[in-house]
């Protein structure tokens, strides 16, 4: 592999890490409260409100049913509004975050729903309010699942970011398509695949380690 290509590879790794990390963080910040809202407003939840629950679920399902490559293009006006441009790595972070947030919200919802109802009842019996229940019971008890779900989301994002090449975001997927596939640079293709495997394994390993440390059950 030529030094030029090697430099491209390093830059692409950084772009992929940036897109995955930034959109992952954003989806965590917005997805977790969204997941909490889904559980809390559901029947028998701590803030039961079926109307709100259905509206949230409809919006989430709507975003989740649009294929990412279409979302990427459809969100161009929104991206331009937020980042100021519709092309490049930072521009890709907007659609990636918007796609990953409802995805992560659903994953967090599953973990939060699994928290034993008896624990919520115990907190209520102690005189705890909703905020107490969220802070002391729901989130800490579901934390291993919340972290494991975040790991899954990051890995999914690393894959989805490959499509971001369509709007000139760069990244490993883009490199593999343009050099490895279209220019028959097999060494680039192999290098990209190896880097992606290491990246995904690294994310998974770190996530699993963290879950093991958090899980007291």
């Amino acid at each position: 592999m030529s030094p030029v290509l090697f430099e491209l590879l390093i830059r692409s790794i950084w772009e992929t890490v940036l897109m995955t990390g930034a959109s992952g963080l954003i989806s965590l910040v917005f997805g977790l409260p969204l997941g909490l809202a889904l559980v809390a407003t559901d029947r028998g939840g701590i803030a039961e409100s079926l109307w709100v629950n259905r509206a949230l679920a409809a919006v989430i399902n709507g975003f989740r049913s649009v294929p990412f490559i279409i979302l990427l293009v459809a969100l161009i006006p929104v991206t331009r509004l937020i980042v100021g441009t519709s092309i490049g790595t930072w521009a890709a972070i907007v659609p990636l975050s918007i796609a990953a947030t409802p995805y992560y919200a659903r994953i967090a919802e599953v973990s939060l729903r699994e928290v034993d109802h008896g624990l919520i009842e115990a907190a209520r019996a102690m005189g705890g309010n909703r905020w107490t229940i969220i802070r002391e019971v729901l989130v800490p008890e579901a934390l291993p699942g919340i972290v494991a779900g975040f790991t899954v989301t990051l890995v999914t994002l690393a894959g989805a970011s490959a499509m971001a090449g369509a709007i000139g975001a760069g990244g490993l997927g883009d490199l593999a398509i343009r050099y490895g596939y279209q220019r028959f640079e097999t060494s680039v293709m192999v290098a990209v695949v190896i880097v992606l495997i290491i990246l995904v394994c690294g994310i998974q390993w770190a996530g699993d380690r963290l879950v093991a440390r958090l899980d007291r059950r």
Partner: protein
Amino acid sequence: MNQHVTAEVADPAHSPPADREDVVRLVDLKRRFGATPALDGVSLAVRKGEILGIIGRSGAGKSTLIRCLNGLERPDTGEVVIEGREIGRLGERELQPLRRRIGMIFQHFNLLSAKTVEDNVALPLKIEGRPRAERLARATELLELVGLSEKAKAYPAALSGGQKQRVGIARALAARPALLLSDEATSALDPETTRSILALLKDINRRLGLTILLITHEMEVIRSIADRVAVIDAGRIVEEGPVWSVFADPRSEITRSLLGGIRPQLPDEIASRLAPAGGGETILRIDVAGEAARGPLLSDLATAVPGPFRLVHGGIDHVQQQPVGTLFLAVPGNDAKHLLEVIAFLKTREARVEVLGHVAGSV
């Protein structure tokens, strides 16, 4: 025009006299789930410092009842008065400070797995907004009380069932409640652990003067620690009184059936041969309690009414330091006069006598 309404208000059964010593007073509680009534007019008082046991089969309404006391469940109609305050119409926010006056322990302990034992115990104080140092000091004190000081930094997953319930008890006591609710607290524990948990509850009741209301489906639990018992069936209180007197003289069928497991019963091989009439031996069931059970009942019977009789089964039990006995006697022969004399003598000793039937030949 308002006659009906007036009559209801005046009904003493529906409005027991306000007693300052009552920690809890329930008046005509009703709660339905769909078409089935879970509570169908429950009136009950819990006196300060007592242990009141509520017993019933599953689905009798026990859980709904205990949850009404801290507002986890709302009755459809009726009053829940805690320390003189009606809580039925309070909103969730107003209920929260009140719930801190009521500790609760659960069948499945409900400890937070992500918190250490001491943080679990300190949680009610954290909810109250107490400073960390005070919370930990109180947790240490309570863990000592329940005998788990060395487990303070452990996580619940590392504890046995009995230890978990001790943590649950410590946690329930953290905010110095006026009332402790126990929801089948020993039902998931083995008999030996159950005994030690019940002994702990009794000890806390005595040492701290804490009022305890417990629900259970096991008479053994009632017998070991309760002062008074209320029997609930199909959403109604069918019987209520001091434990020993309910044990000695159960009025309702459901109470007798719940007592079945721990009170002497006529052995099956005799019961199956029992006939309403015929020769052989007459089987009597004799229930005695209190003073009557303390005296030399059987030897006095032998002296007063000469003639043979045999003790088939039974014995004297002690409930709340009161002797409560059930004896099954076989009186041989067909001499009706002799039998009547035996019964008449026993009745002079305040025993309740029931002729169960006759068994042909020797028992």
